[in-house]
């Protein structure tokens, strides 16, 4: 009963819910538009793209203090992306249920390395969020919740790694569905909005002649 619910209707609901609400939020943000800037333009338009890419590295001033977070962050994000879209079970699932076509998956060892990176990175970052006074101060309950929810999804995924027990796969799927539903309401939206927010900042400041 519960198994069928998780594998069928709940999956469809959470996937559509995620798609619709996330898109809606994105569109709301985009259609808000930019406030009119009264400053005299100091530069030709076009600072957005550069900033989108420059922000992949920390400011030189912060490189030393944020070194650990930088590496843990990259380990987590790269590991997670590799897991999400190139782990063999995910490729199978997505190609059967979503896209209808398949693509090459990572070999098993790379899958496990990616899992190590993602789990280790996220555990470290989630704890750092609690331990560092500054990040703790600027984190809301939702931020903590989002970190640990993603961690739980990945943990149950690693429980189900052997792909032999249906119950473990369903547990993983269930948590992933919860995550999909929570996603559009949380700061996890940064996965979709980051190019726009970076681009926005870049465009505004470039126009004002500030190099960031």
């Amino acid at each position, binding site marked *: 009963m519960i198994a069928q619910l998780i594998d069928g209707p709940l999956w469809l609901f959470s996937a559509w819910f995620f798609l619709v609400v996330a898109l809606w939020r994105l569109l709301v943000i985009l259609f808000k538009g930019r406030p009119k800037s009264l400053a005299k333009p100091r530069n030709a338009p076009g600072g957005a793209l550069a900033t989108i890419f420059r922000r992949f590295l920390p400011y030189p001033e912060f490189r030393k203090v944020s070194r650990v977070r930088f590496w843990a962050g990259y380990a987590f994000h790269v590991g997670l992306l590799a897991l999400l879209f190139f782990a063999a079970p995910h490729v199978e699932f997505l190609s059967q249920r979503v896209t209808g076509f398949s693509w090459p998956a990572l070999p098993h060892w790379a899958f496990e390395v990616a899992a*190590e990176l993602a789990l280790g990175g996220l*555990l470290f970052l989630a704890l750092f969020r609690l331990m560092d006074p500054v990040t703790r101060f600027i984190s809301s309950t939702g931020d903590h919740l989002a970190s640990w929810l993603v961690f739980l999804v990945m943990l149950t995924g690693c429980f189900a790694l052997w792909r032999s027990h249906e119950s473990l796969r369903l547990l993983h799927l269930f948590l992933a569905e919860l995550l999909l539903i929570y996603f559009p309401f949380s700061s996890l939206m940064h996965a979709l909005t980051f190019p726009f927010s970076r681009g926005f900042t870049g465009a505004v400041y470039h126009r004002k002649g500030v190099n960031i």
Partner: protein
Amino acid sequence: MSFRPPPCRRVTRSGWICWVLLAGLALLVADLPAAAPSHDKPSAKVDDPGTDLWRFVRRRAPELRSLAEKGAIGPVTTQVKGVDTSVLINDKGQEWRLYRHRMLIPISAIVLGTVAVLLLLLYLAVGRRVPDPRETGKRLLRFVAYERTLHWFMAAIFLFLGVTGLTILYGRPLLIPLVGKESFSAMASASKEGHNLFGPLFLVSLLLFLQRFWRRNLYSRGDLRWLIRLGGLLGGDSPPAGFFNMGEKMLFWLLIAVGLLICASGLVLLFPNFGQGRLLMEGAHLIHTLGAVLLLATIMAHIYMGIATKGAMDGMKGGYVEYSWARHHHREWADEEEKKGRVLSEEEVRRRFGEARKIGVPEREAGT
């Protein structure tokens, strides 16, 4: 007729010397090569040519190989490719089974259970020890955010590994009767995968720990005195200590050494595809489990101390400790920090934690 007990005989000193000499002689004689049998005379004993063959069947491949090289026997071969396939009988398997089932499972249960119960009783009896209740309102920074994160990172991984490992170890006697074989199989499979994935992360955390803390855990003067007085456990004042006291230093090096052993043996078990034979893996399992039980018992005591000693957890929670706590437990360190002018007020600490507005620090300064 009255019975008289015989006089009590005592071995005199010269008697002892005689015994020792005799024993030494016996050892010497035993070590001497037996007189070489003469080959000229026909022996009445006829060897069964089969016995040596069946004896070799029980030997392991390396021994057989060395015997083969000496020309004593021919090689042992098989056409099936693989590790250990030419070993006919793995007689160490039974020893491993006896180790796991007669020693590891009962003894570790007793050790871990006893330690847990004793510590719980101690906690209930003594409660949270209050070494120095004085609230000075002064604080010292003990661990920065990275160090605290690292500690909890390692702690989380360690506990997870302990729980998953013990699930595999005790699940059959304890959990199968409760949840049944099918459900336990899922739990055990999850534990195994989780254990295998988090194992290497434990190694990473261990190495980061070593890199960060090794210097502060080197032996320094006065540590021995601290140890002899058991850190003040025997009464009296706490003996002075530096940043870490001797107990903490011993825990650190035990954790590093045994942890590395556990990781090394764990990796041997984790990758069965590098051509290691059963013998090596059985040995690795032995080291792995002995180390794990030792560390688990030690860490239980560590957790008890962290909880029972008032003020000790502060350093690992927010990073700042009460000045009087530092004076009591780490006097040399506290004095040094004071000399360097690093004693902070409670307000300053709270400001750093972002409760700026509540205590009226101007917004600009607090960075909001």
